[in-house]
């Protein structure tokens, strides 16, 4: 598909020299090269969102082709649902908890990696490893490590008296949420590290050398040289992490399926359950629309906080 686009633009080129081309021809080529991207977006993003808004106005039993128009009643149902508000609260808890842990740990690892004189390359690879281990493997290893029979972390925790000897920690009301946050952060903190590390490495050494000559302490150098240069990138990382974690479905579902007793049922989990377990596709789409609104707010903040196009030569 992509190749044809370019080939057709190439034939146009042969007939007319580039210099003679008006803006129209060039614009046409430009749009032709990005057409596949637009098609993909239309197909996978725009249509589904429009469809979700449409479907959210109907009562849709998944296995039944008969839709009943119910207007906004799905939204009323969602907004009066206790489980919606509790999942929103749990989602906020999960989002804030994860973002804070990931920011602190990720920044800490980045600063340490940047300061090391020996073993830097090796340890950077170690850190990246965590980010590259697939989520499902993180989950499988976590389930194994918390296994009631032979799980190493289960045994460690029960020896320390954190949970009972026969208690599956991930199935325990008090522990499930914090453990899901921590297990997720094992992987995703490194996202912040990667983001920050690139920026840290771009700070010229002579800044620190000059500061050292002036007698600045390490803390002063961090505060006055390092921090101002990574604040921007940290903001972006925090915003992206918050948005991603608010919409996190995979790791929570695989670890707990929203349990025990709804203790980890965030909004994405609730929407999935509503669609595929309660067979209430219309209501699930109403929830998807609500999530999309949150995303749109996130996107708006993203563009306000940081105008990415301004930094590209066009």
């Amino acid at each position, binding site marked *: 598909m*992509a*190749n044809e686009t*370019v080939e057709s633009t190439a034939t146009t*080129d*042969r007939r007319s020299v*580039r210099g003679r081309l008006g803006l129209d021809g*060039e*614009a046409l080529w*430009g749009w032709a*090269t*990005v057409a*596949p991207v637009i098609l993909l977006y239309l197909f*996978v*993003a725009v249509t*589904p*969102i429009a*469809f*979700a808004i449409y479907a959210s106005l109907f009562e*849709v039993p998944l296995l039944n082709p008969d839709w009943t128009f119910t207007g906004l009643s799905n939204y009323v149902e969602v907004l009066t649902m206790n489980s919606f508000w509790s999942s929103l609260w749990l989602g906020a808890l999960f989002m804030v908890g994860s973002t804070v842990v990931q920011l*602190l*740990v990720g*920044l*800490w690892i980045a*600063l340490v990696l940047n*300061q090391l004189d020996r*073993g830097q390359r090796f340890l950077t690879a170690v*850190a990246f*490893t965590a980010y590259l281990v*697939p*989520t*499902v493997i993180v989950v*499988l*290893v976590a389930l194994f490590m918390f*296994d009631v029979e*032979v799980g190493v972390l289960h045994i460690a925790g029960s020896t320390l008296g954190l949970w009972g000897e026969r208690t599956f920690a991930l199935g325990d009301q008090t522990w499930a949420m914090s453990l899901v946050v921590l297990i997720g952060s*094992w992987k995703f903190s490194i996202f912040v590290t*990667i*983001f920050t*590390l*690139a920026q840290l490495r*771009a700070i010229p050494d002579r800044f620190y050398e000059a500061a050292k000559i002036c007698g600045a*302490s390490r*803390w002063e150098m*961090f505060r006055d040289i390092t921090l101002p240069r990574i604040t921007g990138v940290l903001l*972006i990382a925090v915003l992206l992490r918050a948005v991603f974690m608010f*919409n996190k479905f*995979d790791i929570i*579902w695989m670890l707990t399926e929203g349990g025990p007793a709804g203790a980890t049922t965030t909004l*994405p989990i609730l929407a*999935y359950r509503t*669609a595929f377990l309660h067979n209430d*596709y219309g209501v699930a*789409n109403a929830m*998807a629309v609500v999530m999309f609104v949150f*995303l*749109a707010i*996130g996107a708006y903040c*993203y563009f306000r906080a940081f105008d990415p*196009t301004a930094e*590209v030569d066009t």
Partner: protein
Amino acid sequence: MSTPTETETPSETETEGGTRLSYETRDRLYHLALYGSAALFSAVILFPIYWMVQNAFTDSQTVITEFSWLPSPETVTLDNFSVLAAGAVPRYVINTIVVTAGTIVVVVGVSLVAGYGMARFRFRYKESFAQFLLLGYMFSPIVLGLPLYLIWSEIGLLNAQIGLVIALSSISMPFAVWLMWKYIQTIPESMEESAWIAGASRWRTFWDVVVPQTKPAIVACALFAFAIAWNDFTFAQILLPSQESTTFAPGIMRLIDQGGYTSWGDIMAVSLLMTVPPLLFAYFLQEYLLKGFEVRTR
């Protein structure tokens, strides 16, 4: 939280005129904190991986009956890897490989052409288009997956791996296209111009002059697409509901759910195999990865 903060304590007491620590002591404390931190996070990251590897090579009966920190020679075995020879697991792994390969091809192809177009052609609304592209960061598989489920069951893409490839490629687009766009901007146009003067068509110039020079960006995009596809659970869980066509992540989770399939030895063995490709990339293509992120965040 950061390491420099930890070294702050001595210098603060110094300015307050209290106990004055010598430069050497402060330096030693700082290096202690620095290497202590490095050791701590390495341990936290490496222990689960060690645990997975150790148990992947341990006799599956021993894994569920005995607990030991170190592997013992009597119980070391390769038997767990036979999980890849039979049953449902090999099919899931192959499906994952197919979907990942497809995603990489689509992402690299589409982003290369789009990045080239955006770097070399002037057209109106290009900046708006680029901003629109970034909205893709906000696409979440769960928000898109729920409506896609019915749409694709209508048009017959449900349970088709090509459907999953399309979905995964779309969410990889913002990163891939931006990276290609920025990268191709750094390639001087004069080389292409001299190729045109020598009579090469635009297509030929693109293929023979531009593409070879974008190799680092292609590797970064391919890695990124690989990570997205290899990691995916949500889209596959929703869009590939049948056990036949599904990928590894939803497949193995359903196996565990349904049959109480908890032969941990087997699971750790296949987990190890699924982890090896990303690890190889982490070691050998670190520079490309960093470069990709650098271009994006700069």
